[in-house]
């Protein structure tokens, strides 16, 4: 056992903050996407078909040719119930993508639409999955923890 000075606490907190200063990249302007998501129950009770419509937030043009994966987290359980992202396939219709989600349980899920390719972005949509019912979660609607 070795005794060190009282300043140890301060000394060991500083290295936490300092290196992070150098991590910043310069920001650059980019295209931003907007998404509209609808999901329907398909097959099993926890299987859902989701349709995502992507548009350019500025021009409202459909966004085609984007690589899209859909992951999901349960907001009530951060860090766990992290779904393996499903790959979405673009439809005939430009800017429309389809993916199949297999959830762990019913409840509110924050869907993460991960865009890559021509633009890299993430859009988060919170949806409530309750059996056949899937709806957007709006404020004041009474938030449920999860579907146990």
């Amino acid at each position, binding site marked *: *056992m070795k005794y060190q000075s009282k300043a140890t606490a301060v000394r060991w907190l500083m290295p936490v903050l300092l290196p992070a200063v150098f991590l910043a990249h310069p920001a650059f302007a980019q295209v931003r996407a907007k998404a509209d998501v609808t999901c329907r129950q398909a097959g099993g009770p926890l299987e859902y078909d989701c349709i995502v419509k992507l548009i350019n937030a500025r021009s409202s043009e459909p966004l085609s040719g984007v690589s899209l994966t859909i992951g999901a987290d349960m907001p009530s359980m951060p860090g766990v119930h992290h779904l393996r992202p499903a790959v979405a396939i673009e439809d005939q219709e430009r800017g429309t993508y389809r993916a199949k989600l297999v959830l762990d349980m019913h409840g509110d899920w924050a869907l993460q639409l991960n865009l890559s390719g021509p633009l890299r972005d993430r859009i988060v949509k919170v949806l409530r999955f309750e059996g056949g019912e899937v709806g957007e979660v709006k404020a004041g609607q009474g938030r449920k923890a999860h579907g146990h």
Partner: protein
Amino acid sequence: MDEYLVGVLSNVGVISFVALSAYLLLLTGEITFGQQAFFAIGAYAAGIATAMWGWTLAAGLGFGALAGALSATIVGVPTLRLHGLYFAIATLAFAEMVRILFEMFRYQIEIDGEWVGPNGADGFRDIRYIFENDISGMEFMLIIYGLLTVILAGFMLLERSRLGVIFRMIGEDEVLAGLQGVSVARYRILAAAIAGALAGIGGGLYAHLTTYIEPRIFDVMLGVHSLAYGLIGGLGTALGPILGVLIDIGLLESIRALSGYRMIIFGGLVALLLIVRPRGLLDERLVHRIGVALRGGRKMRV
């Protein structure tokens, strides 16, 4: 490395911060159900700093840590005289209060025609720093683990330092520590502040990892888990809580079949361990024994 694995590992890393935060307080003998509050404060503070004020990630995380430390100090002073169950309940009440305040917290500004900022129960979207600055998921994971490594190194130093000994003395017997001349109150507040900063950094990372936070994320479930991670993994070393996180998120997430039964398995594991190994897998005895073995009978450094 695939996207999913990066996602799971990033989650393990981020949750480790709040687990370490609860662990630090366990070291000083306090059971808290409220570290998620500082995780939340750090997440909102860092998110506001980068997404609304245009700060860099480093500055945002620093701001989150500072906000966590400050609020923990403010809570630490009035709860100083509380112990055990009373302290646990006070921290829980505070954390719930913070969560409800965030449900009412609206602060948005218009950026490029989009409203950005915390919007009550609807959450805080578009904390898009890593996308705007073209940081890949992998790079962000490395940032998380870089910071975690620094924190762990800090804990290793702490365990060998005078401050670490003081924390352990207070944790084992506060009155006895006072009788050795330790200013218990001062060090308890210091521990609370450091723990608040740790949770704050974790929250900041979480906000940037998911780009989206909402008050529900920070409910008592997260607090109970972060406490349980230390109790499962062990109180003998800072690697204990990380082991706890790995067991919970790593193991159960990797075996999807178990995922739906997570709470049952996890709860059972906590109950079992509290009976057979009350100070966790990597407890003081084991760590002490490993330490003695590593010194290999060499003359003890004094």
